[in-house]
């Protein structure tokens, strides 16, 4: 079952929304889509949250799809070698 997180994530809410979404991981048998189109920049907390979230999703065997990631944020994920732990769609 694919769960789409309809609420848009922005710069400030990355960590808090990921914490909320963690609860859905058990229900999401398959895929989870998070809309990142409003995230213009990651800060340290957001980056840590993403890394942690990726690990939890791995454990739950859930494929996390980030939608609309801008290229600057994507480059941070690449530099942190986190890009391979997510899928990306427009």
């Amino acid at each position, binding site marked *: 079952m694919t769960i789409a997180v309809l609420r848009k994530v922005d710069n400030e809410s990355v960590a808090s929304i990921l914490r909320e979404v963690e609860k859905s991981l058990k229900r999401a048998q398959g895929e989870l889509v998070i809309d990142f189109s409003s995230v213009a*920049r*990651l*800060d*340290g907390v957001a*980056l*840590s949250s993403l890394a942690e979230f990726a690990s939890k999703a791995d454990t739950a065997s859930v494929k996390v799809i980030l939608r609309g990631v801008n290229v*600057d*944020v994507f*480059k*941070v994920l690449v*530099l*942190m070698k986190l890009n391979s732990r997510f899928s990306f769609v427009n």
Partner: protein
Amino acid sequence: MIASEVQQERTQVPSGAQPPNDERTAYLDRLVDQARAAAALFSQFTQHEVDRIVTSMVLAGLDQAFRLASLAVEETKLGVLEDKVIKNMVATEFVYNYVKDKRTVGIIREFPERNLVEVAEPIGVIFSLLPITNPTSTVLFKCIMAVKTRNAVIFSPHPKAQTCCAEAVKVMYDAAVANGAPDGIFSCLQSHTLRDNDYLMRHQDVALIDATGGPGLVKAAHSSGKPALGVGAGNTPVYLEKSADLSAAIVDIIISKTFDNGTICASEQTVVIDDEIYDAALAKFADLGAHVCSASETELLSRTVINPSTGFMQPMAIGQKATTIARFIGMSVKPKTKLLVAPIQGVGPEHPLSVEKLFPVLAVYRARSVQEALRVCVSVNHTGGLGHTAVIFSRNDEVIRKFSEVINAGRIIVNSPGSVGALGAVYNDLVPTFSFGCGTGGGNSTSDNVNIYHYLNIKRVARRTQAHMWFRIPNQIYFNMNAVENVRQFSSRSTIIVTNPVLERMGHVDVVRRYLSAETHAHLLVIPDAEPESRAVLEGVEKLNFYNADQIIALGGGSVIDAAKIMKLKYQSPDADLEQLAAPFLDLRKRVVDFPINKIKQARLIAIPTTSGTGSEVTPFAVLTDKDRGRKITLADYSLTPDVAIVDPQFVMSMPKGLTADTGIDCLTHALEAVVSNYASPYTDANAMQAIRMVFKYLPIAYEDPKNEEARCMMHNAACISAMAFANASVGVNHALAHAFGARFGVAHGRANALMLPHVIAYNAGVPTKFMPSPYTQGYVAHKKYAAVADLLELGGGTVEEKVANLIAATEQLLQTLEFPRSIADLGIPKDEFGRVLPELSKAAYDDPSGRSNPRMPLISELVDLLRKAYEGRGAAQQKEIAQLITA
């Protein structure tokens, strides 16, 4: 004394050290992870954000300059507090002044005239090793550089400078993070070991090592396999030349050598003083508080401050006051002595004080001449100081120039203190730094003062540039019947008419003579009717000299005009080396060998062609045969282009049919190759297209009806117009093949061209196996341009392929009308003989410069194929080829 501590910096060689234990490894990995995350997050920052953080760090550094200097002196027991304060201020304020307006994010520099943009890419995690001699100032400097360039740094302080370094890093870190920098941007190792350094130097996520310190440290950094800025020891020679302002020079040397007790590696080590001012210089040193050592004192210093086993300075002396050193070795000096000046007699192991001494002991040498002084400076430079710093005091520009030529140093400081001068931005406009790149002489990749640009990957975005092209032809061209009359308007006292025996017998020379002005003395030079030979050309030059000619009229075909071009060249520039001028080139404007500009004589060249094909009257080419060496020399330069061309059809009215056909097809080939050439331009296209139209219309008439004046006139013009195109766009593979084949089998040039032409059109119209790189063309357009030719000729066809096929068919038809052989086989050349020479022919065609402007890069195998097709001939094979082309 601190001998053991300083020694550690000089001898630590972490390479090959055992890895740290698991707990320590985890700690180091965490530091790297933090730095990597910080660098990744930092990559999103704007220039404005970065600059705001830098400013806050600089202010914090300035505020703490004294405290950090105090900590450094207290912990390291080296140097002078007041000088370390200055170092901290230079590392902040002066560095800030250099970096504040520099762009380090996104586009950092633009070169619109070159269509070039430089874009900054941060490096990532930098592992930075710090020296004991300048600990806090180096931290401040490197932190500012790192933030300005959006990098993260892990610092490894010298074991005996850990506290002051950690405190300096904290000052910078707190200011940076408080103003928005990512957490983890800096960290400073504590209680670390050589194993830790080794581990971090080889860590996969460390992108760059910036090692400032002793030779062992630098060597370890360079041995790690990582990109490294490893900058270390020097041995600064100083030339105090007799023209110098002696009083100012001595003060500068004392300022520099006593600055922070001589701990800056750019400080003066051996001063070579001209004999004339030697005694005065030593007196001034003494007057200003230096102690000039006696021979026995110098010997004592040599034995004590330099390690007799290693030949390096003793750590116990580094960064100590002159009085402390004197007391330690038992030398009696005045209480306020600033500097120990020790006269030495040479450089090298037998003169221990000629090495680097990071303490206020200065060697001096008396030189009896400039040459001796320079030799001694070079010797000092090569005794551990390669690539680092050198100093000269002189008002003689020539001596300064020579010094800078013979000394290998990244910084050559003139009339100012070496140490503070090398730091930059105080006494000169050098980039402020605390790391001196020493070039390859010092085992470094840079000889710069290390700065922000060494902390960046600079990406160069190179947009395609609009290549400049050209269209060059004689500035006067006269054409149509009786155009030769225009000869009379050119004044000349002495004219040489170059022609061949046939044309002379035909009375053409008399026609020309008729129009020369009365005051012109005309002399005839008859050369053989063949490709010009070097011997004939040189004889011609003799005649030009004999008659002191001011005008040359070349009356003939391509051979005569080519000969006249070369005669003019050698007449005007006797030293011109034809062999050298024939050197190959890829781009006419970038050729290695330039044609001579200086001319000892001036002569006008008027070319009057007597055939309608080569177009030599307007081209910059000339071919010369050197029979003695059995080779041809092809010259190409616009200076060879005749000054005046007179295209008068009266001289071609009696051309035989075969020559009419051969030269006419040569003209057509010029135009067809110029149209698709990689050097084609709208200017050459206009000429080439017009020439093609004229050839298709008038060549058959001129061939069938040689007396048809209009056809002759138009073909004569077509040859010239076509030549204007290929003089600027060049030709292509058709000519390359024809040159090779014609030379091997003695076939006339036009005929050889005709045998290749339909095959070459089909070849160029196909999809290239390899595209020819060319800045002048956009995409592959040869097939479309052939189609445009077909449209011009109204050949019909609905698609590009059909139009190309129709052009090939029309060319075939023209060749048939002109009664050209259909194949090489038709010439009577046996197939087996042709097969045997195919490799030689294809190689010769490949080497021919004509092929370099062909739109399709000819592979040797393709040249073989083209030659085979030419052997088999047109007809069935050709039809099949066209059919394939249309299908494709």
